[in-house]
């Protein structure tokens, strides 16, 4: 028997097409891909702006192109959802590469909104100290190639250069994120992963202040990310060896026995080792991106080193995209394997929640504390993934939407508290902030309470949803651990609030910069989403619930 003729006829495969067949044009559903295409179009337009628009006009043009592109993409998502692509017309598009279904559209909509808010913070130019010659200074290095601290760098700063390429790079990252949770096969999943990661590695290296820390974080992120990608790719190869197809739905069929596995496999072994180790390697690659515990080591360093607006965007959007992909992989390709992956994921979730919450207590830097808090939240989200039921999917979707706006808002507030060296991220510097600038302190306290999961904030609704889904899915001990870890986590969130409101302000304490309308809007949207999803969560639950069915 030929090794290459083993795939079921309905399942396309890399090497099986008959050589003599004429080439038929592929069928591409452009309308269903429109959110991704619009974002890519805006990104390419942004590159052309870099090339042809004079330096003076670039910032405004880039911001306009980016926001118009995001608005167009969001309109496309809403249009697709309104015409039933989330429910009745859900289908695989572009030769099975992209799944247009409820979870895809929900996450794509969330990602586009998150990016829009993130772009507002990225576009802020009013926080750094300015001079008459250089009236606008953003958070990014004026010339990334200049040696930190060199004469070149100072000259570039004096010349008022800015790296407006971050706008198209953000859009490229977003396009990868839109592909990632919607991928219908492992190859598209891998390429989505790469497209979302590469621009993020680059943007991590672009901080204006503390550039060595920023460059170190970018190199660390890149090397560890490349390592995770290698794991992912090898897992893909092993799963292909097992199933003879890369389609998620096709793999599920082989696992359940509805389709024949790769016939070259030994009949007695059925290649279970290939399936288990391949699946484990792919899940490892995804767990790296969500920052779950054995693969979390990059998170604190990268969150601390990256420019804070980028950290906010990355922390919120990467988590949404990566959890979407994890859900799709586990619920579409490997649902029948859940007796194998659930115990492992239990361990990962418990470790992630516990380590994130406990290590965060010892942190003295706001950005590092928020990084460990994001690790703990990855653990809470994993409990929803483990639930293994439809309620678990909708709970994770809701949690992602709620959590991402809180994160964006919190990091946007961090950009405001500054001293002569840039952002004052050491926690001791935040003493007494509530007396000096009550509004900023109250807003930050709101975000911290949402992280802690206090009722009437979106954090509470999200945690309630994932924990009740996990309990319903038979993971009660996990929920108990989750609640205990939430209590530990609440300790360090509340400690920051106590510092801000009840400690004596320092004489040499940081000042709070007055943001322009851009960062102001970002923080306001974050706070509004936190309150609305906390007080009136029902409509969002309904939306997530309607959107929680995957297409195979």
């Amino acid at each position, binding site marked *: 028997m030929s090794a290459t003729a083993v795939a079921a006829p309905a399942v396309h495969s890399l*090497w099986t097409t008959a050589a003599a067949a004429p080439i038929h044009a592929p069928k591409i559903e452009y309308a269903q891909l429109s959110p991704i295409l619009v974002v890519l179009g805006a990104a390419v337009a942004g590159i052309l702006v870099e090339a042809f628009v004079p330096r003076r006009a670039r910032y405004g043009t880039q911001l306009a192109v980016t926001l118009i592109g995001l608005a167009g993409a969001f309109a496309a998502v809403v249009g697709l959802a309104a015409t039933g692509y989330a429910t009745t017309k859900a289908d695989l598009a572009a030769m099975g590469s992209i799944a247009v279904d409820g979870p895809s559209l929900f996450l794509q909509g969330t990602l586009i909104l998150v990016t829009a808010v993130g772009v507002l913070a990225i576009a802020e130019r009013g926080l750094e100290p300015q001079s008459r010659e250089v009236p606008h200074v953003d958070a990014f290095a004026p010339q990334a190639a200049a040696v930190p601290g060199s004469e*070149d760098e100072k*000259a570039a700063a004096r010349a008022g250069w800015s790296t407006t390429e971050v706008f198209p790079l953000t859009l490229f990252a977003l396009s990868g994120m839109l592909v990632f949770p919607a991928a219908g096969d492992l190859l598209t999943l891998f*390429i989505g992963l790469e497209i979302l990661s590469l621009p993020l590695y680059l943007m991590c290296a672009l901080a204006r202040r503390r550039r060595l820390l920023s460059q170190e974080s970018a190199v660390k992120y890149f090397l560890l990310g490349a390592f995770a990608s290698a794991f992912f790719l090898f897992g893909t190869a092993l799963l292909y060896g097992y199933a003879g197809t890369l389609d998620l739905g096709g793999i599920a069929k082989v696992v359940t026995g509805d389709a024949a596995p790769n016939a070259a*496999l*030994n009949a007695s*072994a059925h290649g279970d080792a290939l399936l288990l*180790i391949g699946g484990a390697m792919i899940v490892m690659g995804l767990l790296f991106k969500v920052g779950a515990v054995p693969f979390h080591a990059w998170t604190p360093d990268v969150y601390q080193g990256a420019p804070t607006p980028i950290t906010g965007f990355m922390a919120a959007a990467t988590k949404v995209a990566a959890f979407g992909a994890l859900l799709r992989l586990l619920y579409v390709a490997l649902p029948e394997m859940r007796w194998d992956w659930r115990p492992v994921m239990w361990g990962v979730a418990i470790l992630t929640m516990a380590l994130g919450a406990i290590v965060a207590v010892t942190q003295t830097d706001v950005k590092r504390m928020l990084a460990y808090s994001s690790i703990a939240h990855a653990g809470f989200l994993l409990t929803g993934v483990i639930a293994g039921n439809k309620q678990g999917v909708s709970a994770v979707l809701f949690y992602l939407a709620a959590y991402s706006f809180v994160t964006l808002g919190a990091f946007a507030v961090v950009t405001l508290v500054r001293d002569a060296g840039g952002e004052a991220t050491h926690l001791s510097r935040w003493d007494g902030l509530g007396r000096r600038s009550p509004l900023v302190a109250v807003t930050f306290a709101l975000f911290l309470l949402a992280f802690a999961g206090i009722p009437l904030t979106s954090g509470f609704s999200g945690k309630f949803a994932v924990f009740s889904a996990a309990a319903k899915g038979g993971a009660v001990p996990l929920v108990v651990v989750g609640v205990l870890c939430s209590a530990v986590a609440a300790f360090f969130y509340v400690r920051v609030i106590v510092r801000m409101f009840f400690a004596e302000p320092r004489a040499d304490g940081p000042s709070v910069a007055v943001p322009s309308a851009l960062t102001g809007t970002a923080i306001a949207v974050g706070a509004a989403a936190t309150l609305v999803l906390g007080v009136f969560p029902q409509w969002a639950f309904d939306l997530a619930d309607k959107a929680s069915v995957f297409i195979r």
Partner: protein
Amino acid sequence: MSGQSFLSTSGTEIAFVLVGIVALGAALLTVTTRQLVHAALWLVVALGALAVEYLLLTAEFVAWVQVLIYVGAVVVLLLFGLMLTRAPIGPSPDADSRHRPLAAAVAVAAAALLVTVVADAFRTTWITLRPGAGSAEANGIGLFRAWVLPFEALSVLLLAALVGAIVLSRRRAARPGVHEEADD
């Protein structure tokens, strides 16, 4: 399966094993030699041997891509990188770090895992190769039909990488005071 046996080896199979030994030996020399340029040249041998293996498995298109991209472009880039950074020609004993045993242990463990998995999954299965299955035509049909979206998405990735590389590496001499200079 069709009466083939592991005892009656054909010329192709003998060649496959021999070329495999060459690839393995060249790879070992790449990581153990103390001369950077030699390491790059041994890498050429290892990657070239891999290309021959692809050819023997009828994956002719992949074989030529391997030659063009890895042997041609990647190693040449590597050599240029060595020359441009004025790396020493000749032995460089300080290139070894003290993590050598650890790296060796990780490499051996990874290789053992992968070899075990693949050998366990396929065991004694006989796979008959079909000539033409790996031809440029078959690959092209696969790429531009079933895999057209990932293929196009990859070009987006390359574009993003290109823009990022320019952002990170382009240097212009800043002229203080001239902050609205014309585009270069």
